[in-house]
C-alpha cells in the first residue's frame, strides 16, 4: 500500500485517538500516582506488637524514669515514666530524643586503636589486652599513681567501679568533671563537714531566691525542677531570680533582679550581713554555728556594707535590703546557688555565701527548706585488694583538686605527669575551659583510654576507644543527684540489645581487671557487671528489679546540723573575670542545647532558635545600648584573652548593658553534620582560673571586646 501524506496523517491521528480512548492512559496515570505514594526511598516502618520497656535516662544528672515504646522489640519512642518519683511523667527534649543517640552517626561501633593518627578497628580481646599491657608496665615500673582517671561523676556503681579500680591499682588520681553535684558536695563539706551534700525542697518552699540558678534551664534534675516551677505558681510561692540576663527562668519569676556577673557572692554576703544586723536569723539553728559567727558577722558588716555592694552588683541598696528581708521573713525560704545548669565554672565562695543565707534562716532539714544530707551510701563496695605497689601508689598525694587543675598542670609541666588516662562518660576536650589547652595536654599524655559511646572531641584525642553501650542497652544504677531533695536510685535496663559491638563499662572494667590478674583480679571478683551490681546494692536490689527504682530517702533528713563559718569568715577573695576589656562575656545555658557529654541530638539542634544559630554561625546576645553602632545580626569578632571568634550579634533587651552572652554547648568539631560544625564553643574564649583553696575552675566569664568583622 502506498503511504501518501493523507493516509499517513490519517493513520497518525487514528493512532493518537485510539491510544487516547484506550485504558492505557488511565492505567499509566493511576500507576504514576501510586508510584509517587510508594517511593522506594521513603521508608515504610514495619508494624508489629507494641510492648514497653522501662529504664532511666542518664543523659544528664536529672535521672528521669523513661518508658520506651517498642514495636516487635524495636524501640520507637521514649516518654517520661508516669510513676517514676523524680520526674513523675514528662521528660525533657534530650531524653525524648534518646533514640537518636542509639543510632547516632558518630556512635563508636567497635573498639578502636589509634595508629599514626588514624583509628583502626580492633576486637574487644585485642583492646583489653592492649590496655592491660600498658597498665602492667606501669605497675612493673612501680608508678601506679601515674594512671589517672576522669569520670563525669562519682555517684553510682559504675563511677564507683572506676574508683575501686583506681584504688586497687594504686592511684589516688580519680577526678570528676565539675557538676552541680560536685559543687554542692564541696559546699556542704566546707560548711557542714565531709560526707554531706545539699538538696533543695523546691516543691514545698514558699520563697525561692535563686542566684542565677536556671530552674527551667536545666539546673538540677530538669523535669523535677520544671514541675516544681509549675507547682510554685499554683501554690503562689514567690520566686526571685538574680542574674545578669533575662533567662527563661527570670522571665517566669515573680521578680528578676539583674546583677553584674560574678558579684553574686558579694550580694549574698551583704544579705547575710543584713540578716545578722536586723536580727532576722534563726537563733535556735544558730546554736549549731561553729567557727566564728561573730567573726563572720564583723567581717561582712565591715567588708560588705550594703551601699558598697550596691555599687558592685548594680542593684540598689533598697532592693538588696527589701529582698533580704522578704527572704528572711518568708516561712520556708530557700536560696539556690549554681548559675545556669549549675555545672559551669563558679566559685566555692559564691556557693558557700548563698548557702549561708539558708543556714541563717534556719530553714534547714525542714519541709520546704534546704536539706543537708549525707552523700548517697547505698553502695556496699568490698574493700579493694591492694598489693604493696598499690598501697604505695595510693598513698601518694593527689595530683590536683579538679580535672581542670589536672589538665592545666599537665599542660604546663615539661615532665610527664600522667602516663595513662582513663576517661569515662566525659568530654573534657570540649567542655573544660580552654579546650585547646586540654587537647594539647592530652597530646602530652602517652596513653589515653576512652570508655565512650560517641566519637566526640575527647575520643578523637584518645589512643584506645572502648565502645560503651548507651543507657538504652545496659544495666546501671542511677542515683538522683544535683540538688534533688530526696534520694531515688533508678535502674537503667537494656530496652534493646546493643546495636553495635559495645559493652557495659562495668563489664569492660571487670574484664580489664581480670586480664591484669593478681590483686586486680581479686578486687574484681565478679563474673559480670550485672552480678556485681546485684551484690553492691543488697538493700535495694529487690525494689530496683521489681519496680525499676528504689526510694532511699525522702523528706527532710534527721539529725542536727553543724555549720562552720571558718571558710567564709576568712573572706576569700572574689574571682574577677580575666582581661581588661569593657564587656563581660558569660556562657548561657540553653535548655535546648546539651552543654556537656553527650552532645545534643539532631532533634534538639533542630529546635534551637535562629537567633542562636543561623546556618553555621552563632550569635552573641548583647544589649542594643552596648552595641555602639553595630547592627543587629551583623558579624563581629569577639576577642578575649583566651582567643577570638567570629560571631553575629543578637540584640536582646533582656541582657544587662555591658554583658554579652554566648550559648554553651555549640561549636562541636567531631564528625556529625547534624550537630557539629555549628557555631563556636564558648569555652574556647575562656581560660580557666583555679580558685585558691577549692582547686576548682572559677572562670564564670571573661572580659571581652567586640569589633566589626
Amino acid at each position, binding site marked *: 500500500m502506498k503511504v501518501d501524506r493523507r493516509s499517513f496523517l490519517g493513520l497518525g491521528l487514528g493512532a493518537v485517538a485510539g491510544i487516547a480512548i484506550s485504558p492505557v492512559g488511565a492505567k499509566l496515570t493511576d500507576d504514576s500516582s501510586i508510584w509517587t505514594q510508594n517511593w522506594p526511598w521513603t521508608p515504610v516502618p514495619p508494624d508489629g506488637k507494641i510492648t514497653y520497656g522501662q529504664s532511666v535516662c542518664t543523659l544528664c544528672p536529672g535521672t528521669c524514669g523513661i518508658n520506651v515504646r517498642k514495636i516487635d522489640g524495636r524501640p520507637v519512642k521514649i516518654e517520661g515514666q508516669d510513676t517514676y518519683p523524680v520526674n513523675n511523667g514528662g521528660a*525533657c527534649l534530650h531524653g525524648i530524643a534518646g533514640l537518636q543517640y542509639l543510632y547516632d552517626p558518630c556512635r563508636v561501633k567497635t573498639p578502636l586503636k589509634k595508629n599514626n593518627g588514624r583509628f583502626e578497628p580492633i576486637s574487644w580481646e585485642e583492646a583489653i589486652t592492649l590496655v592491660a599491657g600498658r597498665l602492667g608496665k606501669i605497675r612493673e615500673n612501680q608508678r601506679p599513681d601515674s594512671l589517672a582517671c576522669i569520670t563525669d561523676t562519682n555517684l553510682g556503681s559504675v563511677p564507683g567501679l572506676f574508683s575501686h579500680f583506681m584504688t586497687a591499682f594504686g592511684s589516688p588520681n580519680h577526678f570528676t568533671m565539675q557538676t552541680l553535684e560536685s559543687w554542692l558536695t564541696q559546699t556542704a563539706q566546707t560548711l557542714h563537714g565531709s560526707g554531706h551534700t545539699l538538696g533543695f525542697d523546691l516543691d514545698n518552699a514558699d520563697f525561692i531566691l535563686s542566684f542565677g540558678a536556671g530552674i527551667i534551664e536545666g539546673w538540677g534534675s530538669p523535669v523535677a525542677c520544671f514541675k516544681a516551677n509549675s507547682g510554685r505558681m499554683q501554690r503562689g510561692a514567690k520566686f526571685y531570680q538574680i542574674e545578669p540576663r533575662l533567662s527563661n527562668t527570670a522571665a517566669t519569676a515573680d521578680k528578676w533582679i539583674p546583677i553584674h556577673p560574678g558579684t553574686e557572692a558579694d550580694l549574698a554576703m551583704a544579705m547575710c550581713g543584713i540578716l545578722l544586723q536586723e536580727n532576722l536569723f534563726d537563733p535556735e539553728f544558730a546554736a549549731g554555728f561553729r567557727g566564728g559567727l561573730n567573726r563572720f558577722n564583723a567581717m561582712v558588716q565591715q567588708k560588705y556594707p550594703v551601699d558598697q555592694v550596691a555599687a558592685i552588683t548594680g542593684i540598689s541598696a533598697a532592693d538588696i535590703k527589701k529582698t533580704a528581708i522578704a527572704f528572711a521573713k518568708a516561712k520556708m525560704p530557700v536560696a539556690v546557688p549554681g548559675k545556669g545548669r549549675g555545672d559551669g565554672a563558679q566559685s566555692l565562695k559564691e556557693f558557700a555565701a548563698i548557702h549561708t543565707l539558708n543556714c541563717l534562716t534556719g530553714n534547714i532539714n525542714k519541709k520546704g527548706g534546704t536539706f543537708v544530707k549525707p552523700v548517697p551510701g547505698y553502695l556496699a563496695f568490698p574493700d579493694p585488694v591492694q598489693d604493696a605497689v598499690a598501697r604505695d601508689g595510693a598513698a601518694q598525694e593527689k595530683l590536683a583538686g579538679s580535672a581542670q587543675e589536672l589538665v592545666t598542670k599537665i599542660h604546663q609541666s615539661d615532665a610527664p605527669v600522667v602516663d595513662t588516662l582513663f576517661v569515662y562518660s566525659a568530654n573534657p576536650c570540649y567542655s573544660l575551659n580552654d579546650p585547646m589547652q586540654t587537647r594539647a595536654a592530652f597530646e602530652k599524655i602517652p596513653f589515653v583510654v576512652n570508655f565512650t559511646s560517641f566519637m566526640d572531641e575527647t575520643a578523637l584525642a584518645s589512643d584506645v576507644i572502648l565502645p560503651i553501650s548507651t543507657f538504652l542497652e545496659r544495666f546501671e544504677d542511677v542515683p538522683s543527684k544535683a540538688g534533688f531533695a530526696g534520694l531515688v536510685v533508678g535502674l537503667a535496663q537494656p530496652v534493646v540489645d546493643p546495636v553495635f559491638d559495645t559493652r557495659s563499662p562495668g563489664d569492660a572494667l571487670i574484664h580489664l581487671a581480670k586480664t591484669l590478674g593478681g590483686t586486680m583480679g581479686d578486687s574484681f571478683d565478679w563474673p559480670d557487671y550485672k552480678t556485681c551490681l546485684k551484690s553492691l546494692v543488697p538493700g535495694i536490689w529487690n525494689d530496683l528489679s521489681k519496680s525499676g527504682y528504689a526510694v532511699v530517702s525522702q523528706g527532710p533528713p534527721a539529725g542536727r546540723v553543724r555549720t562552720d563559718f571558718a571558710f567564709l569568715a576568712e573572706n576569700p577573695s572574689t574571682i574577677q573575670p580575666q582581661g581588661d576589656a569593657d564587656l563581660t562575656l558569660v556562657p548561657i545555658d540553653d535548655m535546648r542545647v546539651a552543654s556537656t557529654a553527650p552532645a545534643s541530638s539532631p532533634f534538639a539542634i*533542630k529546635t534551637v532558635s535562629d537567633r542562636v544559630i543561623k546556618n*553555621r554561625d552563632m550569635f552573641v546576645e548583647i544589649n542594643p545600648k552596648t552595641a555602639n553602632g553595630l547592627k543587629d545580626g551583623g558579624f563581629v569578632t569577639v576577642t578575649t584573652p583566651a582567643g577570638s571568634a567570629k560571631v553575629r550579634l543578637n540584640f536582646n533587651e533582656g541582657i544587662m548593658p555591658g554583658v554579652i552572652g554566648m550559648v554553651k554547648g555549640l561549636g562541636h568539631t567531631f564528625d556529625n553534620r547534624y550537630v557539629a560544625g555549628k557555631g563556636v564553643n564558648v569555652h574556647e574564649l575562656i581560660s580557666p582560673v583555679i580558685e585558691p583553696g577549692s582547686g576548682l575552675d572559677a572562670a564564670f566569664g571573661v572580659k571581652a571586646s567586640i569589633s566589626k568583622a
Partner: protein
Amino acid sequence: MQDKKAHKFGMVIDLDKCTGCGSCTVSCMAENNIPFKEDESDKKDSITWMRVYKLTNGKSFPDTQTAYLPRPCQHCGGKGDHGHSPCVSVCPATATDYGYDTGIVSQIYTRCFGCRYCMVSCPYHARYFNWWDPVWPEGMEKYLSPNVSPRMRGVVEKCSFCYHRYQLAREQAYYNETDEIPEDAYQTACTTACPAGAIIFGDLNNPSHRVHQIVKPDPHPDPLNHDVVGKSRNPKVFRLLERLGTNPKVYYMSEKEWIRKVGDSYLDGEWDKMKNHHGSASHD
C-alpha cells in the same frame, strides 16, 4: 461508625508554666516520624508541627519580658465553627478534611499533590511542605514508628493532634465494649511530654474534661463578631487571632495581660475596650 456525640478535641496551653524547653516539639517529631536535615536554622523550611515561638513585650532593659508560645495546628473550626477551616476550604483535592466527629483537621499525604494553597491560607504557619525527601542517617530509620507513615517529598504535612493515638484509644474502647474514651486514654505526644504540665488536652464538648472546665467555651457566637464561636468565658484564656474567625481549638492561658494582648491584633486603644469582653455570658 459515628460516635453518638461528636467530640471536639482541643487544647489549653498555660503560657505562664511553659518554659520554652522544646520537649513538646521533640516529642512531636519523634512520635510523628518527622525528619531532620543538616541545617535546620532556616525556620521557614524546618518541619516542626509543634513550633515554640518566643514572645516579648517589646520594652527595653530592665522592663523587658519574654514568654514562649507553643503552636501546634490550631484545628480551626472555621467561620461560625462550621468546619470550613481556612485550609480545608481551599484544598482543591480534598486532601485535608475536617472531622465533624472529632473537630480534628486531617491531612491525607497520599492525596496531597503539593499545591501549597493550604499553607498560604493558614495564618498560623502550622502547615509545612516537604521540600526534600526525608532522609535518615544510616540505621536511624529503625526508630520510625509504624503508626504514622513517613511522608514523601512534595506534600504538605501538619499536626494531627496525634490522630493515631485517638484511633488506638477508640480501638481500646471498642475492646472494652464502651463508647466512652477516658480523658487520659487519648492524649497527644506534646501533652504527655510537657515536663511543666503546661499543656492540657481533651474534649471541649465534655464538661468533665479539664479543657472544658478551664476554657468554659461559650456555645453562642460572639455578639461583637458572629464568626467567632466557642470563645472562652475564662478571662485569662484567649485564642490566637481569634478576631479572624478561624475558631481555633487551641486555647492559651496567661495571668499576664501583655501575653494575652499579643495573641491577637488590636487597633490603637482597642485592647482596653475589648480585653474584658469574654463571650456572651459576660453580657447576661
